């Protein structure tokens, strides 16, 4: 076993007859900022969900800090999950709770902090994403970009070691998207975390990645630095980054 923080070892996943992942291998080192790119529907969200065991592989294994996460139960599974923070594609804010309650929920349920401590942590995290004044709003009152930022504040509330981003910029206008990208870069440096983002937005990928992995046909097609991506002769990657309908990738 390598000394990677996260090890994805030959995982396969199918839903009924649909084979989504067909042997994905990927090691993520501590402190890296990895972006996983790929077509819509190629299994990026499915892959991300395997990391925190929201889904379990049919074959293969995921390790975290040297431990096979399928062996974790009860408290140890919860502890593993708390070392992650996840931003979901649609932000997945709880619509029955206010912004502040959303950000503080993990801490409230963990029951290790007093109410005033949680209040000040929530304030600090909302400050970090520039939403100090939104604390008493309901999620339904927020714009798409603001929802993502609340989701971001919620993801970092428990001081995670790894941040997972599922299409952080999809559905946002270019300016808001750029602001989110800046935030991701900023948080990566400030919080000293490992970041994994999945996206099909190449602008975003080049901005936040120090390593880019392309998922294609259920496997890792390419793994390299942003410069290597720009200069690659791999036809699949070239077609994807230039956004062409002509090439080896079949448009479904």
């Amino acid at each position, binding site marked *: 076993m390598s000394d990677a923080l996260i090890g994805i070892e030959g995982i396969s996943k199918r839903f009924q007859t649909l084979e989504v992942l067909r042997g994905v291998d990927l090691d993520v080192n501590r402190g890296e900022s990895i972006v996983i790119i790929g077509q819509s529907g190629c299994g990026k969200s499915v892959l991300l*969900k395997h990391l*925190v065991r*929201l889904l379990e592989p049919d074959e293969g294994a995921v390790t975290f800090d040297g431990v096979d996460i399928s062996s974790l139960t009860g408290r140890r*599974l*919860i*502890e593993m*999950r*708390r070392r*992650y923070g*996840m931003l*979901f*594609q*649609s932000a*997945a*804010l*709880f*619509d029955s709770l206010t912004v502040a309650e959303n950000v503080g*929920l*993990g801490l409230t*349920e*963990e*029951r290790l902090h007093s109410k005033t401590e949680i209040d000040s942590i929530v304030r600090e995290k909302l400050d970090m994403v520039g939403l100090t004044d939104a604390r008493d709003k309901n999620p339904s009152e927020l714009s798409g970009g603001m929802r993502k930022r609340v989701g971001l504040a*919620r993801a970092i509330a*428990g001081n995670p070691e790894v941040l997972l981003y599922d299409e952080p910029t999809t559905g946002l206008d270019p300016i808001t998207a750029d602001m989110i990208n800046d935030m991701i870069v900023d948080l990566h440096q400030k919080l000293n975390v490992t970041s994994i983002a999945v996206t099909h937005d190449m602008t975003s990928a080049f901005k936040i990645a120090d390593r880019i992995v392309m998922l294609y046909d259920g496997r890792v097609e390419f793994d390299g630095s942003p410069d290597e991506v720009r200069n690659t002769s791999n036809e699949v990657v070239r077609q994807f980054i230039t956004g062409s309908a002509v090439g080896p990738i079949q448009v479904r």
Partner: protein
Amino acid sequence: MESGLTILGRRGVKFVTKLGGIFLMLGRFLVALKELPRSLGLVFDQLYTLGVKSLPLIIIISVFVGAVAAWQAAYQFKFIGAPLRYLGQAVGKAVVIELAPVLSAIVFAGRVGAGVTAELGSMRVTEQIDALESMGISPIRYLVMPRVLACLFMVPLLVVFAIFIAILGGLVVSVIGVDVSSETFLNGFRNSFQIGDFINGMIKAAVFGLIIGIVGCYEGFHTRGGAQGVGLATTNSVVISSVLILVFNFIFALILFRV
């Protein structure tokens, strides 16, 4: 071409899978009960929202159920020549052991069971349930347990209301429409009232509440595919719990009320 047998086989597998899933949900609910103390606040929230939501409807329906029960009983008494002073007894028995528990449960399934499925279903498709789980919060403890418990307690409570209101409805019809004095009607009701019937009615109501809660949560948790999926799950939830209520009601009749 698929043979009829293949289609039947696949339907059968689906049915058994669903039943298994519902039992699994029941098991996970029971396991989550050991964390009840820390979730009491959530339980009270649900008791309030789910119970209060259905009270007005239960009241309206019970008035008419009691009224029509008295009217139909009087009609049949006339036909077989039974004395009308037994009207209170007939209406009372029917309301306490069958009409109030079954009709309240069906109304509750349509109002609250559907609401639970729609809420959890939309939380499922917008990844809110995944988000809870990824934060290390058990969705069974946080979402399912409080809702199922609230159903379990609220249905019997609503049945008590329903009995009370239905008897009142029956009384009004008897006095105005059938010309039975309120004294005669209430005496009949009192004479026929047995605490055992009432307790059996409550047991039934609690089981119906459990069915509605578990099925509602199961369907919500297994919702797939956007707004359309939520609609489908909601319909399924009402249909499945209504059928189960009637099936269990028959089983209860065989066990509790021996002829």
